[in-house]
């Protein structure tokens, strides 16, 4: 198991190095610098600014400086939000993003697995059709369409929930964002869980267990559930990536003060430092989370470790 973990870790490190390097060069070689405002700056001021941020150094020296700063957790200054560093902005937004994102992921896993298992146990009867219809809707319709509709009904017509904003950060403010973020993943996980449990329940070892006279609930809990989880586990990596990208849209839509909102503002204002900082953070987070998923996968299914 330890060897397996080390091997996965060794594969993740070069990926992270490539991302960091690519980010730096994309940022520096992109047309239009951060100080190309609509009003031309005085050349002296511009030169001073470039010197202050080290843009006048040769590219190689800039890269070394960038790596040094990165090691200290410094992602550089933001040009969209003057006086604030990218690290500060990310630090500001991260608690909100994490709270909404992780809750959505947990909800998706729990609800998706239960709904999928329920559908599989009552295959081709109404609970199955209900779950599968909702799942097709969740997969087909993007969440930036579903979420405004929910806001319209629950917020505007019924006045049950606030339409947008973070307010005091209580559950009333994050219920809709979490739902909007979780729904497509609930749908996908329910579909996978249903298919996988149906397949497992048709497998020979389940037939053997039943033939031995093992009680039905024990067949499911003891024999079928663990192997049925394996495909769900392998979907968790993509699910995390989708929740990450989804959170950008949902934060924008509901006006939540998370990382995604700063990211979009940065992209609109061509704030390379901010955009690249967020992309690097999210890519590294995604790779590390995938590593965790891989390890959990290896623990759940010993065949994976052997490969």
């Amino acid at each position: 198991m330890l060897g397996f973990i080390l091997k996965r870790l060794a594969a993740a490190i070069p990926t992270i190095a490539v991302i960091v390097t690519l980010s730096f060069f994309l940022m520096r070689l992109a047309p239009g610098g951060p100080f190309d405002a609509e009003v031309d700056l005085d050349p002296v001021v511009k030169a001073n600014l470039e010197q202050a941020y080290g843009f006048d150094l040769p590219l190689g020296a800039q890269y070394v400086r960038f790596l040094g700063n990165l090691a200290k957790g410094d992602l550089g200054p933001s040009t969209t939000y003057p006086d604030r560093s990218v690290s500060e902005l990310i630090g500001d937004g991260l608690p909100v993003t994490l709270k909404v994102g992780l809750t959505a992921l947990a909800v998706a896993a729990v609800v998706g697995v239960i709904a999928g298992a329920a559908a599989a146990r009552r295959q081709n009867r109404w609970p199955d059709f209900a779950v599968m219809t909702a799942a097709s809707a969740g997969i087909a319709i993007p969440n930036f369409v579903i979420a405004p509709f929910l806001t319209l009904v629950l917020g505007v017509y019924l006045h049950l929930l606030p339409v947008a904003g973070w307010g005091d950060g209580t559950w009333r403010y994050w219920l809709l964002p979490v739902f909007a973020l979780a729904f497509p993943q609930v749908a996908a996980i329910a579909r996978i869980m249903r298919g996988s449990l149906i397949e497992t329940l048709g497998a020979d070892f389940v037939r053997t267990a039943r033939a031995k006279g093992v009680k039905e609930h024990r067949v499911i809990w003891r024999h079928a559930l663990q192997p049925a989880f394996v495909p769900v586990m392998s979907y968790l990596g993509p699910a995390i990536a989708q929740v990450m990208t989804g959170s950008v849209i949902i934060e924008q839509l509901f006006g939540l003060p998370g990382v995604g909102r700063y990211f979009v503002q940065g992209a609109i204002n061509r704030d390379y430092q901010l955009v690249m900082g967020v992309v690097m953070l999210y890519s590294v987070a995604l790779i590390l989370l995938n590593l965790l998923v891989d390890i959990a996968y290896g623990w759940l299914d010993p065949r994976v470790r052997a490969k």
Partner: protein
Amino acid sequence: MTLEAEIQPQATSGKPPLGLWALAFRRFRANRAAIGGVVMLGLITVAAIFIPMFWPHEVGAVSFGALAQPPSFADFHWFGTDANGRDLFVRVFFGARVSLAIGLVATLVSLLIGVIYGATAGYAGGLVDTVMMRVVDVMYALPLLFLIIVLVTIFGSNIFLIFAAIGCVEWLTMARIVRGQTLSIKQREYMESARAIGLSHGKILRRYVIPNAVGPVIVYSTILIPINIIIESALSFLGLGVQEPLTSWGLLVSQGAAQIDAAPWMLIFPGLLLAVTMFCFNFIGDGLRDALDPKGR
């Protein structure tokens, strides 16, 4: 399942047996959801082409007497007007042009890149294959929408750049599929027999490799079109995609979401049309998959 039942009578009836495509077409035609999807999508496409040409209101025309007016049949504002008094009916179908075009063109770009890349990796094999697929693995690990946003940030949100940016990022799965197909086809017995009877490489490619690889590619393309439409919509929704005076479903939904309490129809109609289109593509994709790859069920 029903496949044998379809083939059996033909084998005995003396008529030439149906080819891959004729059989696939039969199976597809029998799938009601898929046919419904094709019809509905056809209607939307025709409407997208002709309604902006013949509708009494022009796309950008402003009626100052009818700002954010609810839907009404009287003055041809069937879907109402937006906050600037522009007719929403014509805007929704004008936006359909942009959304559908982006879905198609971006998919073609990713198809081109993916097929060439995947086939090269699969044919070359060995170290070339390993390195090429390792690159795909690395890119897979990235959140792709973010990558597109980076490209749009750097190169600006010109509509053709959006086509290219989406296509340049969404080819990964296509490359994997084509590579897998190429690898498995390379080892088939009919390939050996084709080589044994002395067919040229070109003929082997045309007669054996491409027809056998093309099924999954078509199926994945129909899955990719709605994905690309959604990506464009998401970009436009964030203000990073199509810019006014052009419009797309994503931009319309975003404007609708901003006016949600004052003019909910601005959200409802483009949102509904986008959702219907997504369902159509899903049904068609499922139908094609079942038709071209009956073993896959």
